[in-house]
Structure formats: structure tokens, C-alpha cells
């Protein structure tokens, strides 16, 4: 190969190399935007899922007393039902295994109301639900500040999408109404 041909050959290789590098950079950018787009879509779908669940829970026949009002006694009934083996799978499908649903009473405040999250008395978590109903719920000793409606058992403080809805809560034993906050926490996959 003569010198001129060698130079031409090297030039061509160099141009192709530059071309390939430019294409590769383009692809990297394109894929990163695509990945970002997919991630945003996933977050949007997760958000839609949380909205669907929040609206669905507020209107669940298992919980409502009348349209848009949650019956506080039914919270105990559902908690017992969810724990029974026959219905575990049904409600896991309904709520999804990445979502925790809770209801917190905010007004009028319950007896011995606590501000620290861990100290708030949750009357529908754990196994002694009936005991809590008889000792902590029934008037005049109502201390049930929180009700866990569904808990998949995931403990995570980050990567959680939270949606809340104010709801009216009916206490049939005393014919009273309170205001509560329905909270749906969606645990995102990192």
C-alpha cells in the first residue's frame, strides 16, 4: 500500500470511528430519555393505581354505612375477615401487596389522643381485635385513634407514594360522626 492510500484508509477508518461514536452517544442519550420516560410512566401508573384504590376503599360495601360514610364497627368486621385464611387472597388481590391502607380519626379527637405516630392506638392491627373492640372502642372509652384496613407487612420509610382522602366516620353504638383521614401508602419498587 502506498503512503497516499494508507492515509486515505486511515482517514476513512477515523471518519467511521467518529460516526460510530456520534451514533453511540446519540443512542445513550436516546435510551436515557426513554428510560426516564418509562420511569415517569411507571410513576404515573402507580399514582393512578393509588387513586383507584383510595376511591375504591371510600366506597367499599365492606366499610360504608351509607354513601361516602365509613362505619367504624365495620372496620373491625373487615379486619377480622381479612385475617381469615378464606379471604386473605381475595383482599390481597383487591388492595395489592404493595399498598397499606389506614384510617386515622382526626376530629373530634379520641380519648387519650397521641401525636407521636408510634403511640397512636391502632384498634384493628394485631390479633386481639375483639379485645380492643370491647376495651378500647366502646363508648365512653373510645381510644381507637387509628384503624389499619390493610397491611401487606412491608416496612419502608422511603420510596412511598401517599394519597389521602378525608372521610366521614359513623359510630353506630353512640350515633356519632367523626372526621377521619383515609391514607393509602404505595410502596414503590426501587
Amino acid at each position, binding site marked *: 500500500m502506498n503512503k497516499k492510500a494508507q492515509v486515505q484508509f486511515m482517514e476513512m477508518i477515523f471518519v467511521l470511528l467518529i460516526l460510530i461514536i456520534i451514533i453511540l452517544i446519540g443512542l445513550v442519550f436516546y435510551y436515557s430519555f426513554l428510560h426516564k420516560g418509562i420511569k415517569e410512566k411507571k410513576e404515573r401508573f402507580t399514582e393512578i393505581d393509588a387513586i383507584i384504590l383510595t*376511591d375504591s376503599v371510600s366506597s367499599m360495601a365492606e366499610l360504608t354505612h351509607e354513601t361516602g360514610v365509613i362505619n367504624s364497627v365495620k372496620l373491625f368486621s373487615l379486619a377480622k375477615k381479612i385475617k381469615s385464611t378464606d379471604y386473605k387472597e381475595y383482599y390481597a388481590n383487591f388492595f395489592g401487596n404493595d399498598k397499606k391502607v389506614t384510617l386515622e380519626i382526626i376530629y373530634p379527637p379520641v380519648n387519650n389522643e397521641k401525636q407521636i405516630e408510634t403511640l397512636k392506638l391502632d384498634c384493628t392491627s394485631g390479633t386481639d381485635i375483639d379485645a380492643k373492640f370491647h376495651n378500647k372502642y366502646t363508648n365512653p372509652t373510645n381510644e381507637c385513634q387509628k384503624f389499619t384496613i390493610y397491611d401487606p407487612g412491608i416496612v419502608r420509610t422511603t420510596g412511598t407514594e401517599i394519597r389521602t382522602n378525608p372521610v366521614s366516620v359513623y359510630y353506630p353504638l353512640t350515633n356519632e360522626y367523626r372526621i377521619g383521614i383515609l391514607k393509602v401508602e404505595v410502596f414503590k419498587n426501587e
Partner: protein
Amino acid sequence: MEKRGVSIFVFTIMFTLIAGAILLVFFFNFGKDLIRFSNKETKVENLLILEKNLASFALSSNSEKAISFSDNSKIGITCDSSNKKLFLSSQDGQYSKEVKKLIFLPFNIGSSEVEAWTLAWNYPFKIDNLYFVADKDVTFYFPGAPYISNEKANHFYNKFKQTRFEVKTNTPTQLDKGVIVYLINKITPPISNNIKAVYIDLNDPPKVQFWDKTSWSSYSYPILGDAMVFAAIFSADKAKFECILNNLAKERINTISEIYQYTVEKLKQTDGCQSNAEYDTIYTELTKVPREFSLSVDGQIQNSAKIIKEQNDVLKTTNCPVLYKSSETMRLL
């Protein structure tokens, strides 16, 4: 390697062609994948849009809305009787999503905008919301309406007429697309793939019969509550109605009955209500509901529902809390 005087041009051309071909194939596949992904994403999004919109108006016991999709959507409902599951699915079957909602479509969705209507299914207490969805080109025919001499039939016709679905009172031709609803007497409907027909007998116990392509099915299914009349109209299909009724609806009735059994026990804790007989009667009837639920029109579950409603009405006159609160007048109970 190269003889003196031999040009490098041929080598360059070959190299460029091979490199170009590789790049072309790569970008072609890349584009194809991108289009496929984008289509799938649209389908998933459309299913989610539909479910989200249905969930958002579930709070109401009776409401309707138009739902728009990003493009012409093809959505159907599949009921899997063996697994007791209902799926919303894109018609090509590429994507499906399990739904826990009782959704009834007379025909698969094929447009970018649909009408949706929800009604609370009370029997006698709220079991769930029923969701009715149809394209705008689907017409509901009520031959002979208004039914002056039949109060019940007129009530259901008027309730349907108040919705935004297309309602006509003539009999359709074979070229039309829709559901014929016979509320008084049934006749043979025009035979066409786009025409479905149901006959709803509103006498006690109420029941429904479906047109089965060439003849009326010999089997009648029970109508459990007022909202089920519309569920029968919107399913317009024997297999679909039977599958949803015998699986998801049955599951819901049983679940809610059991929830109410627990609730009755707790309501009895109210001061002065421990010896209340109404709670005991309600409890007994609630325990019967799961075994009384059947596809036969024997009226057993109807009796239990009636007793629960009567006893709940009695509770309204006492100081003891009622089991459920409902303002709806039920015509079929």
C-alpha cells in the same frame, strides 16, 4: 496486501455497505420495538383510564360520565369462571388486567369515547357498585315503551331513559347495533350478530331470559335487586351474565353477608339492645344467604333479603342502631 495500482475504492464500498446494512437493521428493529412498546403502553393506559374513571365515581350510588381514551380503544371483558376472575382486556389479548369491579359491557368497546354508568347494587344492603359501559353507537331498544299499564316496567324504563345511553322504543332492523329489552312480553328479535335481546320478567320472583342467537334460552336467571335488571340488560349474554353472577357476584354477596354477621354481633353491644330480637332474626337470615344463593329462580334468597330489610326497617323505629342505611325504594324486594 494490495498490489500497486489496485484501488482501495472497492474495499471502502464493501465496508460502507456492510456497516450501513448493520446500522439499518439495528435501527429498523429499534423502531419496530419502539412502536410495539408505544402501542402496548397505550393499551395499558386505556385500561387504567377506564378503571380509574369507574373507581372515581364509585362513591355515588347513581352517576354517569363519558370516558375518553387517547385513541380508538379496543377493550373487552373476559370472565374466567374457573378462577372466579374478571379481566378487562385489549381485544387482541395482548394485555389484560384483573378487575374487582362488576363491569358489564353489551359489546366490546371499539371507540375513543364511551358512556359509563354506575348503580349501587343493594340487596337489601349495599353489596357493591355495578358498572355499565357502552360505546355511543350502541342503542337500547324498549319496544312498546312507555308501559302505562305496568308500573314496575315503566319505572325501569324511565330510569334507563334518564341516562345518556341511546334509547329507542321501536324494534331495530338487522342493520342496527344494540340490545332489545322486553319488559312485558318477549317476541323473536331480528337475527343479527349486532342485535342482542333480553326478556326481564318483573313478577315475583323476578327473572331474566337471554336471546341465544337463534332462540330464547330455556333457562331463567334470578334478578337479585333492582340494579341487577340493568346488569342483565348490559351483559345481554347468557354466558357472561351467568359467569359474573355465579362467581364475582356470589363471592361479593357471601363476603358482605359475613361482614354483616360480625357487625350484628357488635351492634348488639349497644346499651339496651342486648336482647333485641331483630338482630337475632337478621343474623339467622344472614347465615342462610351463602347457601341460598343459586342460579335457580326459587326465591329463597329473595325471602331472606326481604326479612333482613323488614327487620332493619323495624330497627329504625327503635333506639338500637340499624344494620345499614338506605334511602332507595326497592321495587323488586
